[in-house]
C-alpha cells in the first residue's frame, strides 16, 4: 500500500459493525462466541479491517502489561526490544500464535510481551505506573519506524488485522482464548485498503474502543487531547475517542457514567428540565468539558478492566441494541448479532441517544 494513503497520513472515515459480550460474574468463556456474533454483521464491513478486544485472557500474567506489537521489519523489532529492555522487565515474550489462511494477507510480525516497568526508571520518572507505560507506548508508536504497539493493558489483549472480522478471529485463533469480556469490530472504511494498525479495537492501557460512526467533532477533540499530551498518530475517530476515555476516566477521575455525560452530553433543553442539584452538575460538566463533547453519529463499545460500556451519540444516529441472558450482557450494532450467540434472550433494549449502558463485574474485581 502507498505509505501516504494509510492511517496517520490521511484521515479515513468509516462505517462499521460492533459487538460485545460480557459476563457479569467474571466467568471466562471462549472467543468463538464473539466470532459467531460479529460474523452475522458481515455486510456491515467490507473486509478492510476487523478486530477483537478480550479481557481476562492472561490470568497467569495479570500483574504485567501485555504489549501486542506489530513490526513491519526486523530492525523495528530490534530497536523496540532495546527500548523495552531499557524501560521494562520483560517477563515473557513470544510471537502471537496465528493461523495461516488465504483471507488474511500481508501480515506484519506480531509479537507479545509481558512487561513490568523497571522500578528505578519508574521512580525516576515520577509518574504512576500506568502513565509511565502509556508514555512508553507513545514513544514507540511515534518514534520507532515500523513498530506499532496496539495493545497495552493488563490481563487483556487486542487482536486485529485487515480482513473480515470473522477471518481475523480465526487468524488469531481467538477460540483458544478464554475471557470474561470480548468486543469485536468489523470495519467499512470509505477509503483505501486499511492498515493493520488502523483496524479496531483501538486500545490504550486497559481501555479499548470499538466504534461505528464518523464523528464531526474529530478535530476539536483531537486538539483537546493533543494539548493533554496524547499524540493522535492515526487520525482516526476511534483513536481520539480512546484517548478521551483514558483522559476522562484515568486522568481526570470521572466515572464512566460521568464520561458518558461528557462525551454524549445531554442537550441543554434536557438539562434545564432537571431538578437541582442535577442541573448544576450537568451544567458544570458541559461548561468545563466542552471540547470533549463528541458530535456526529457513533455507537461505541468501550472495554475496561472489569467492565464494558455501550453508548450512542446523543441523537442516536447509529444503531445499537443491548440484551441480557443470565449472567451475560450483550451489545451490538444489530440484534441479530446477539441472537446468533444467544437466541433466547431475557430482554432486548435499545438504549436512547446518549444513554450509557454500563456493566461491571459483580464481585467488584
Amino acid at each position, binding site marked *: 500500500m502507498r505509505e501516504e494513503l494509510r492511517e496517520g497520513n490521511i484521515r479515513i472515515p468509516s462505517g462499521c459493525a460492533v459487538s460485545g459480550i460480557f459476563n457479569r460474574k467474571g466467568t471466562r468463556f471462549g472467543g468463538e462466541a464473539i466470532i459467531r456474533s460479529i460474523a452475522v454483521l458481515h455486510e456491515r464491513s467490507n473486509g478492510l479491517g476487523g478486530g477483537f478486544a478480550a479481557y481476562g485472557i492472561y490470568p497467569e500474567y495479570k500483574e504485567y502489561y501485555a504489549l501486542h506489537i506489530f513490526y513491519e521489519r526486523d530492525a523495528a523489532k530490534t530497536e523496540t526490544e532495546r527500548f523495552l529492555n531499557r524501560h521494562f522487565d520483560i517477563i515473557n515474550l513470544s510471537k502471537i500464535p496465528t493461523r495461516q489462511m488465504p483471507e488474511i494477507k500481508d501480515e506484519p510480525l506480531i509479537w507479545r510481551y509481558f512487561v513490568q516497568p523497571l522500578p528505578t526508571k519508574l521512580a525516576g520518572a515520577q509518574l504512576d505506573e500506568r502513565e509511565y507505560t502509556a508514555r512508553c507506548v507513545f514513544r514507540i508508536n511515534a518514534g520507532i519506524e515500523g513498530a506499532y504497539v496496539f495493545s497495552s493493558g493488563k490481563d487483556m489483549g487486542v487482536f486485529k488485522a485487515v480482513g473480515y472480522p470473522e477471518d481475523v478471529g480465526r487468524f488469531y485463533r481467538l477460540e483458544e482464548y478464554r475471557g470474561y469480556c470480548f468486543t469485536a469490530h468489523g470495519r467499512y472504511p470509505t477509503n483505501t485498503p486499511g492498515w493493520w494498525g488502523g483496524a479496531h479495537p483501538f486500545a490504550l492501557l486497559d481501555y479499548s474502543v470499538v466504534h461505528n460512526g464518523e464523528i*464531526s467533532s474529530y478535530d476539536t477533540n483531537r486538539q483537546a487531547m493533543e494539548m493533554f499530551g496524547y499524540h493522535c498518530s492515526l487520525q482516526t475517530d476511534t483513536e481520539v475517542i480512546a484517548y478521551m476515555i483514558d483522559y476522562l476516566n484515568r486522568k*481526570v477521575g470521572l466515572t464512566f457514567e460521568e464520561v458518558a455525560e461528557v462525551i454524549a452530553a445531554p442537550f441543554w433543553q434536557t438539562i434545564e428540565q432537571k431538578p437541582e442539584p442535577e442541573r448544576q452538575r450537568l451544567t458544570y460538566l458541559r461548561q468545563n468539558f466542552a471540547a470533549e463533547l463528541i458530535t456526529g453519529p457513533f455507537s461505541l463499545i468501550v472495554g475496561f478492566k472489569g467492565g464494558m460500556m455501550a453508548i450512542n451519540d446523543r441523537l442516536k444516529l447509529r444503531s445499537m441494541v443491548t440484551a441480557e441472558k443470565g449472567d451475560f450482557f450483550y451489545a451490538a450494532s444489530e440484534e441479530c448479532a446477539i441472537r446468533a450467540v444467544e437466541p433466547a434472550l431475557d430482554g432486548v433494549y435499545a438504549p436512547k441517544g446518549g444513554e450509557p449502558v454500563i456493566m461491571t463485574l459483580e464481585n467488584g474485581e
Partner: protein
Amino acid sequence: MAIEYQYPEYEVVRDHDRCIGCRVCERQCANCVHAFIEEKERMTADESKCVNCHRCVALCPTHALKIVKNAHTFRENANWSGQLIREVYRQADTGGVLLSSMGNPQNHPVYFDKILINASQVTNPSNDPLREPVETRVFLGKKSHRIERDGRGAILPKIMPSLQLKVPVLFSAMSYGSISYNAHEALARAAEALGICYNTGEGGLHEDLKKYGKNTIVQVASGRFGVHVDYLLSGAAIEIKMGQGAKPGIGGHLPGSKIFGDVAKTRMIPAGADAISPAPHHDIYSIEDLRQLIYVLKEATAYQKPVIVKIAAVHNIAAIASGIARSGADIIAIDGFRGGTGAAPTRIRDNVGIPIELAVASVDRRLREEGIRNEVSLLAGGSIRSSADIVKAVALGADAVYIATAALLSLGCHLCRSCHAGRCNWGIATQVPELTKRLNPELGHARLINLVNAWEHEIKEMMGGMGINSIEALRGNRLMLRGVGLTQKELDILGIRHAGE
C-alpha cells in the same frame, strides 16, 4: 489658493421630475448639503459637503435622489491613487493628521472570503435544525478539569466566573459619547432579549441602563472614565481594554463638544472637557502590571466576574495572548485590523495590525501548544460581517465573536465613515439632540434582535450541514474548513488545508 479646491467625491443626482420640493432632504442633512432656491423654486445640493450617508436618499418620499461616485478623475495612475493625491492636498492645507472612522477599507486580503465550509455527505448525516436540537450556547471563562467530590463521591460543581451566551455573539465596545444614548439603549435591550452581552466601551454606564447589567460588559480603559466600584459590580464581566484593532498603539479622544449633560456625568468628567484616553494604561507598562490590574478588578468584585483583556491583533499576538492567559484573565478578546472605530488616524487604521483570521488561528494554536487553552476563552472581533464569518472564526479557534459594525448597520449606519465629524444623520455617532432622536431604541433593538436571530438560524444551518449539533464541537474544528487561493504559508498559519486536499 486654487489647489485647495477639491472636486466632490460624490454627486447628488436629483430627478427634478420627481422632486416635489418638500425639503425633507434639506431638513435631514446635518451636513447642510441640500438647499431650496426660492427664486427658482427648486432644490439644489452642495456636494462638497456630502458624506454619502444615504439619509436623504432613504427619506425622500418620491425617491428622487441618488448618490453616485463622481466620474471626475485625476489622470490614471496605478501608484498615486486619487485618494492619496487628495490626502496630500488636505495635509498640505492643514498640517494635520488625517482622521477616519469605521474599519479599514483598504484592499487587503479578507481571509474569511478565502475559506470554505464543509458539509456531510453519505458517511455521516447532516442535522436539520428545524427538527433536531443544534446548540449554540457557549460559556466564556476558564475551564477546570480538577474534579472535587464530597464524602459520598458526588461532584462538587465549582462555580467559576463565566459569561453564558445563547449565541456566540457579543456587541463589542462602543462608548456612550462616541455613540448616542439611544444606540446604547438599543444594544442593551437587544442583548438582554437575545441572552448575550453588549459592552459599555469606556464611557461609563448610564444610570438608566444599569438594569441591563446581567447583559453588560463594563469596560476599563486607559482613561478610566466612569470607573467606580458600583460600575464594576453592575456588569456581568469586566473588560480591560489594552488595544483596539482599528488603532493599535493609539489611545482615544472624544472631543469636548460631545461631552455635556449625561455624557459628562457618566464619564465623571467636567462638561466640555476633552476625554483623552492615553495610548498605554499608565499603570501598565508590562505584563506583570496587567496582572495587577486584573487582580485589582477581581478583588474589587469579590472574584465573581470574569475579566476580559482586549488587545489589538498585532504581529506578536500569540506570545502576547499567552502572557495574558498566564496573568489571570478569563477571556482574551482579539480585535483584528479591520475593526471599526469612531475616530482613528487614517494611517494607523489602514496600516497597523494584522487580520483577525490569522491572529485567532495562531493564538488558539499557541495556547494549545502551551497547554493553557482551558485557562481562557477567546473572543474574535475586527470585522465579523456575517454568520459565515462567525462559523469560520469559531472553527479557527474562537469561542465567540464580537460584532459592532454589523450591529450599527442594523441600527441604520450606512458606513459613510464620518463618525468623527459628530454629525451622524442616523442618530448613532452623534450627541446632537436633533440627530440622536432619529434613532428609535424600540425599533433599533428589534432590528438588532432580528439580525442576531437570523445569524443564529444560519449558523445552525451550517452546523447542521456539517453534522455538528453543538457549537463546542465546532470550536477549533479546522478540518471543517478548506482554503481557496491561499499559499501554503497562509494555510499553515490558519491550520487548514487547501480545498481538494
